[in-house]
């Protein structure tokens, strides 16, 4: 009798949860799941995005993808950009966070100064750095009588470096705050105990700080990686994927192919591969990094 009552209660609770989850599920399904399936459906057609005809061509677009050197180049650029960002942003953000956590003066001022760029739209950031590299910094050269090459967006060899500077300038402050929050939650007893055990500052950093920051590292690494894989707006505002195609990311290539190039079906195939890659990267990272969190 009691059991029946409990199970009735459970059912009621489950129903309540479902009702609460339902609006979110509906929005998620309409906004994400359905377009994802539609995108896969279009990827099996030769649709141009304009006509009503959507001719089924099977996996032809996917076969074409593997032979497309421009798409391969776009992936190669995206991978380099992602690796560069993940390393630089994590290292810099962590270093800045440690510096700010060490009790330096005007900590709030620095924190604000580092954080402000991430409040600016990536499009504006693109324009800012386009002007910086094309006008402001070369003018500084003239003023100082130096000859540094600041025209980073103007050459295929240097455009990646320029974009990494722009992107890191924008986002380091954001990830720094996450690390800072993580640092401030590390119990001071752990440091004191390590000190008593004779650990110097470096030992304390690698044996106490880093393990305790594992959850924050997971968040930052996954966030930076997936964000970098999806880079688009920064490129639109700064290099437009150039010079030539030297800074064309996968998303940029997908957009220009599907929309400007009127190859919606082919562009959809590109999207599907990107989604799969993003899922794969996120799963590997989360699984790998979570293991470390448990060990910590």
């Amino acid at each position, binding site marked *: 009798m009691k059991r029946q009552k409990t199970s009735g209660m459970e059912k009621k609770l489950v129903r309540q949860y479902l009702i609460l989850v339902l609006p979110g599920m509906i929005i998620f399904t309409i906004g994400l799941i359905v377009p994802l399936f539609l995108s896969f459906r279009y990827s099996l057609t030769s649709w141009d995005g304009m006509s009503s005809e959507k001719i089924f061509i099977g996996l032809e677009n996917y076969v074409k993808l593997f032979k497309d050197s421009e798409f391969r180049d776009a992936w190669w650029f995206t991978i380099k950009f992602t690796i560069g960002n993940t390393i630089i942003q994590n290292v810099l953000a962590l270093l800045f966070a440690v510096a700010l956590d060490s009790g330096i003066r005007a900590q709030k001022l620095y924190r604000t100064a580092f954080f402000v760029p991430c409040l600016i739209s990536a499009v504006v950031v693109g324009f800012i750095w386009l002007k910086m590299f*094309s006008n402001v910094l070369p003018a500084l050269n003239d003023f100082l009588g130096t000859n540094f090459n600041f025209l980073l967006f103007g050459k*295929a060899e240097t455009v990646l470096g320029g974009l990494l500077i722009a992107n890191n300038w924008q986002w380091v402050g954001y990830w720094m705050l996450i690390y800072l929050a993580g640092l401030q939650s590390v119990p001071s007893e752990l440091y004191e105990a390590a000190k008593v055990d004779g650990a110097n500052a470096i030992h304390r950093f690698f044996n106490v700080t880093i393990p305790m920051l594992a959850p924050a590292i997971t968040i930052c690494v996954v966030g930076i990686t997936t964000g970098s894989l999806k880079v688009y707006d920064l490129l639109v505002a700064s290099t437009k994927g150039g*010079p030539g*195609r030297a800074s064309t990311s996968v998303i940029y290539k997908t957009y220009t192919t599907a929309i400007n190039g*009127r190859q919606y079906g082919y562009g959809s195939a590109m999207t599907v591969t990107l989604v799969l890659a993003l899922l794969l990267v996120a799963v590997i990272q989360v699984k790998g990094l979570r293991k470390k969190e448990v060990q910590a």
Partner: protein
Amino acid sequence: MKRKAMSIVLAASLCAGMMAGNSVVCSAAADEEVTLIVLAGQSTTDAGIEDMIDEALAEQYPNITLEWECVDWGNDFQPKMQQYLQSGLPDIMIGKAQDVATYAPQGVLGEIDATYLDRGLDAARENVTVDGKTYGMVYNALYQGVYYNKTMFKDNGWEVPKTLDELQAIIDDCKAKDITPFASHMVDTWSIGNVTMQFCMNDVFNKTPDWGDQFRDGKVSFSDSEDMQNAYNYNKLIFDNTYGDTFSTEQTDCDAKMVLGEAAMKVSGSWSIQNFLDIDENFDFGIFPFPNQTGDSKLIFEPNITVMTSAETEHQDAVNAFLDVLTGNKELAVEILDYTKTASMLKDVTPTFDNPSQEDIDKYAADNMIVDVTLGNNQLVWGGFQEENAKDIAAWLQGQETFEECLKASDGRVDASSAN
């Protein structure tokens, strides 16, 4: 009999009543508040004309309001159109003449009434007419060619070149005198695409107007066509004779350098005039067509602002009112032309701004040495083809691709070379 007469009278009065009612509805429709959606794909010169049109429309048709969506024609017009093709087109679209060939075959554009077309120049109609129906109202035009610093040409004793050898002589003299021959801004891929089409017009399409069709039929290719290769190679000529930082120089900076006398020439279009005169209203410049292999190159003419209407609009009367204001209000037309520094495509409308290159344009027009670039743009479309080729040209100039790879890439894009 009486009953029959009565029924006739009743029927007649009913009809009369209905007609009167209709006229009341019609006049009500004329006064009804209407909001028209306008998608405007603008060139760099056009931003701001929407306010002028709003003002003029409010005076003549106060019941009509325009809801503008202004986007960059080169980057965003086609994507927006693609989006609207799925959800329903705006009432009015402002693009370029070449857009008519892209969208009219989809059956989504409305035919423009002859009342308004007749107010425009006949020369503008051909390339916006599909199967005998005209779907675009061309409003203004740009000229494209080589802008040159008249003072610099005069001081150095240079004559306007007609052949490539004459152009090379000027380049050599420039170099000897430490003058940069060409101002350019290759950071803008559209600029590379634009000048390449100028070269193609004079070396390819003037000789073979259906080159694009032949390309799609497999009869010609970029890799095999000497004319097309010449057109591509002129980019190298510019690149070798321009600033070292051309891939970091934006249009405004480039135009400023031209005005400040840091370069002698610039392959460009009327969109540069706005900048030239903004920087120095006394800047004296002319224009000539970029010389071709045969020495008979023509000045390029591009119909620019082209109004298209939706075939499905629910407000055709209001759309016609919009066309009426645009084509019938000469004061507005002059204001727009003076602002955009462009040429008129309306009858009896002449801009009043002082255009130092007008003298040259008139001379080429008198000699029938002007050609409409819409021909080339319809043969080889901009979106997905010309703009992608321009990226390969940039990669070739930067040493990232060989010339052969660049040509091969254009050949490989054959499926995207036509809008339909």
